[in-house]
């Protein structure tokens, strides 16, 4: 059975793994201004992750804080969606991932802002403003790359095609959760559809829908991501940083 702890953990893991991937862009962005922008988004995701993981730890009541949850769980214990753990790829893939993630997080956090759980409501209220910014940023770039040059169009379409299947997992029903993600698909489609159209991109057909992240069954990529993220913390058990 999934508990409120699982829900907070899932959202926190989404944000944490997204932040870890975005942080990999540092000093590698296509333009220096974009380096600053990607770092801002990574910082927002990391900030949300810390709030959510801290709250998850309190819900669990076993004394685990944000760092215990981030650094001392193995990949099978992570509950993030597969989308966020996919490698960054080129800038088009990163923007496709960000568009889909933020087009899910924005309605999710907005709904959370009105939920009965006061802590989650407060986190949602803060994070939704940031998500709106992330979604705008991703859409801005998807339009430019889709309707830019022949090469950028090709890359952007390939990125959307590659990442699209992973969007479905975001909206898997979660009965009893403070917000059931199944109810957010409409918002997602209503936003993403027109962005793809304006970008002269083709919305991929629905079909293959990889999933498993919410149950701790991930892609091969997550274990590597965690190995890097956790290496130092785990090398010094009990140390303070």
């Amino acid at each position, binding site marked *: 059975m999934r508990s409120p702890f699982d829900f907070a953990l899932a959202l926190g893991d989404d944000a944490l793994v997204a932040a870890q991937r975005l942080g990999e862009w540092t000093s590698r962005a296509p333009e220096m201004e974009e380096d600053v*922008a990607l770092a801002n988004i990574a910082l927002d995701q990391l900030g949300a992750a810390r709030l959510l993981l801290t709250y998850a730890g309190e819900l669990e009541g076993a004394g685990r804080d944000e760092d215990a949850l981030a650094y001392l769980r193995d990949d099978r214990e992570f509950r993030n969606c597969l989308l966020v753990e996919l490698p960054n790829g080129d800038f088009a893939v990163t923007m496709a991932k960000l568009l889909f993630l933020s087009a899910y997080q924005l309605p999710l956090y907005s709904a959370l802002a009105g939920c009965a759980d006061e802590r989650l409501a407060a986190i949602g209220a803060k994070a939704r403003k940031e998500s709106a910014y992330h979604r705008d940023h991703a859409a801005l770039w998807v339009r430019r790359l889709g309707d830019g040059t022949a090469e950028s169009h090709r890359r952007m379409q390939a990125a959307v095609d590659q990442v699209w299947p992973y969007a479905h997992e975001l909206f898997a029903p979660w009965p009893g959760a403070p917000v059931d993600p199944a109810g957010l698909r409409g918002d997602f489609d209503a936003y993403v559809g027109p962005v793809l159209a304006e970008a002269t991109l083709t919305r991929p057909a629905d079909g293959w829908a990889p999933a498993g992240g919410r149950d701790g069954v991930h892609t091969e990529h997550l274990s590597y991501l965690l190995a890097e993220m956790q290496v130092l913390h785990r090398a010094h058990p009990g140390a303070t940083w």
Partner: protein
Amino acid sequence: MSGTDSTSPLWEVFVRARRGLAHTHVGSLHAPDAELALRNARDLYTRRQEGVSIWVVPAAAITASSPDEKDAFFDPAADKVYRHPTFYDVPDGVAHL
């Protein structure tokens, strides 16, 4: 801005730091169009504060008398406290930090 880099235009950035103040020139940046210029300006010049209003103006659209004037600095804002030096614990007695 490709391999041989056709420069993207220069934009001048003006920020209203707080309600009641006029927009003030804070610097410049490069962006291919106004929408990106506005987003870049938000990221670059308001990293330490929220709730400001930003204008971006193509530098080429400005007619200047001489000499040119550029100025202004932000007061730090509250959200990301770790950006501010007072966030850090400095042991008693440490000087020059």
